[in-house]
């Protein structure tokens, strides 16, 4: 059976479709609509009876995956937004100001509140300000300090205070009461799902690997739009169980795996199928990426940061606000990459220098030097744009990828 037609992949399609349908239906019936940046803790919204949320970044990634990224980017560019801006932002602005036309999800409706943060990048704040100014909607900003080391305890408390402010703001704007008990329940669903997610990712250790990074890119979608729900927990259990069964049955995505690679950056959403197919034909499997391994962890790590029943959800959510690579520095990034290389037996690293994400990309030249020196494995840097296919050249990328594989082979042959 094709992996894309497996029960877990079919379930992914189903729960994502249902999620967007539910969002649109409830929004049409008067729910309070919030647009959020991806790291804004969605579990908080579970504390309200009738709040729904959408994630523009997720919508942009989906648009790019469905081949309409460049089209939406062009709409934003015609409105005066520079082609040098993040392609997620351009896709989303293009979609929003064309009333959802050409969107795979019929757009995201109109929000009652937008919530951004500056941990992944400060530009999210500028991006969401575009909607605040154009539509006169309130914009709540979460200020999350960058980490060069572990998150400082004073920063954690600062973030917690802001979460409390966000809750008060939603209460004020929506007229709804907040119930922390419901957030406890949501946290348990998230934690359950995260534990299964980590179990799923562990199958990359197997030789040949039980997964490819492209599986994890596709499967991360519920992290953005369904955290804190029973569907979230059930889906990742299904995914991990299914992957376990495949490994036990000897069913591997790249059965003739000769090269085990690591990917560093956001997924190239418009290239997933083409890139995975072509790499597999060469016996190469990109088995993991910090981009998908970081969920549920602390900055600089990929291990599950546990949430136990009775813990303070706001504290937990604040403590994990720096987990997504972009909000932490070079020392931590090198540590996280090193652990993955060692744990997964990586033969080479693909650093995807991403013009649309300077924050992710701007330490990669140093990371590359450090990895080559410490682990003595070949690395390559390729140019990508995570969502604007016009800024990607398959031939240029594969010229380098092929060279990487040749270098690995040459090193093996002494």
């Amino acid at each position, binding site marked *: 059976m094709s992996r894309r037609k497996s029960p877990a992949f079919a379930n992914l399609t189903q729960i994502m479709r249902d999620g967007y349908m539910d969002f649109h239906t409830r929004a049409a019936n008067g729910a309070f609509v919030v647009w959020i940046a991806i790291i804004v803790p969605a579990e908080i919204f579970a504390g309200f009876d009738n709040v729904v949320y959408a994630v523009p970044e997720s919508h942009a990634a989906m648009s790019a995956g469905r081949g309409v990224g460049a089209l939406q980017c062009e709409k934003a560019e015609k409105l005066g*937004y520079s082609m040098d801006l993040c392609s997620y932002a351009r896709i989303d602005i293009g979609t929003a100001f064309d009333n959802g036309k050409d969107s795979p999800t019929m757009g995201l409706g109109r929000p009652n509140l937008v919530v951004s943060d500056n941990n992944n990048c400060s530009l999210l704040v500028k991006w969401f300000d575009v909607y605040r100014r154009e539509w006169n909607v309130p914009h709540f900003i979460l200020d999350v300090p960058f980490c060069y080391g572990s998150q400082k305890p004073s920063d954690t408390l600062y973030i917690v205070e*802001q979460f409390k402010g966000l809750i008060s703001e939603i209460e004020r704007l929506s007229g709804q009461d907040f119930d922390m008990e419901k957030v406890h329940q949501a946290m348990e669903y998230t934690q359950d799902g995260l534990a299964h997610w980590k179990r799923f990712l562990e199958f990359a250790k197997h030789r040949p690997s039980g997964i490819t990074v492209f599986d994890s890119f596709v499967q991360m979608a519920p992290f953005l739009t369904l955290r804190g729900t029973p569907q979230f927990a059930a889906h990742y259990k299904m995914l991990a169980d299914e992957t376990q069964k495949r490994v036990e049955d000897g069913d591997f995505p790249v059965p003739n795996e000769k090269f085990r690679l690591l990917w560093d950056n956001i997924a190239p959403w418009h290239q997933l199928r083409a890139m995975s197919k072509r790499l597999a034909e060469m016996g190469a499997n990109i088995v993991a990426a910090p981009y998908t391994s970081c969920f549920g962890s602390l900055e600089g790590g990929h291990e599950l940061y546990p949430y136990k029943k009775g813990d303070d959800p706001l504290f937990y959510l604040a403590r994990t606000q720096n987990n997504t690579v972009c909000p932490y520095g070079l020392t931590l990034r090198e540590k996280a990459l090193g652990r993955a290389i060692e744990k997964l037996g990586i033969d080479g690293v693909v650093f995807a220098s991403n013009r649309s994400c300077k924050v992710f990309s701007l330490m990669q030249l140093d990371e590359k030097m450090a990895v080559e020196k410490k682990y003595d494995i070949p690395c390559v840097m390729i140019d990508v744009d995570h969502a604007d296919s016009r800024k990607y050249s398959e031939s240029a990328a594969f010229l380098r990828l092929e060279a990487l594989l040749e270098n690995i082979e040459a090193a093996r042959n002494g």
Partner: protein
Amino acid sequence: MHTLWGGDIVPALKKLKDRGRPVAGCFPLYPPQELLHSMGISPVVLWGLGGGSNKLVLADERVQNFVCAVGRRLSQLVLWDAGKSLDALFAYNACDTLRNLPEVLEAGVAEQGGSISRFFLHVPAISMQRPETKSYFTRNIKQCISELEALVTIPYSTESFLQSASIYNEWRAIGRELDIASGKGNLPFEQLVRFALEAAFLPVEESLAAGKALLGDADGNLAPKNAVPVILSGIMPPPPAFLKVMEEAGLFVCGNDLAPLWRTWARSPKLADAAEFYADFYSNHFPCSTLLPTADRRPAALLELARQRGAKAIVFIGEKFCEYEYFEFPYLEKFFKNQGIAALLLEFGLDDLSNVAQHATRIEAFAETLAQ
């Protein structure tokens, strides 16, 4: 050669180092220079670099070419210096690029056998009207002070800080006067820019004296007759060659909100201890796209400036790859068009001399439209 708008800055750096005080290379845009100064540190703000023919060999090894010229140029300087003149790097969360660079540069300096201390201040990106935000910022300033005290022999004192803050406020006042004089045509705009950029590499006392002398010499109406007065808006000033193009096209710069010029000088914060001073400094700064809570005030502030200076148009100088500015341009352009003020957007970096001819064509066409 490391240049500052065409002039070699290495002698200035060496002179600072020879004073015997630690020299801190501060990342733009608005570092807390008064605090460093009060603790016996010589702050230099690492911007305005470029304009020479030197290649960015060292920076290119560590920083991709889609990073703005400000970031790439300061990287080149720090890596070239390798800790010989600069004892420390001081950064705050001015932008995503700049928050990523300190460790990269520290590693690069170490690789060459040098060493450089690293300091970072998180300035809240949200309003300090929220009490918890201001108390958080106060703690950050105190923490920053205690870290700096490890570098220097002079501990922080409010008295010293107030003295330093007074000098910087006086320097800002001189900057304002020079800017106004330039807007009236009493001082060439190019000279105003040079004063602003050179100030970053001079002790503030020397820059203050230079500013006073310049003000004393500012005289006569240099504005060409029939020239159209315009405001220049953006992060960095354009290269001198571009200013010449503007002049030849019949445009006269009557005001600006460039970051090292008017945005820096427009307001002197109230004198207070360091925490209070900087809460005021960052909260009530002249609007800047990088100081997120101030950005909404920018259209009105620019409009007021345009009215005060009699500007007929605004030219936005988009620093190449500065996404903070890019997100605001469509909104600003629309705002000014609604106010009946023509606006032109150009994109380039400080050291980008290759596209002057292309920009010249656009400037000439814009000037012709204004003349009609």
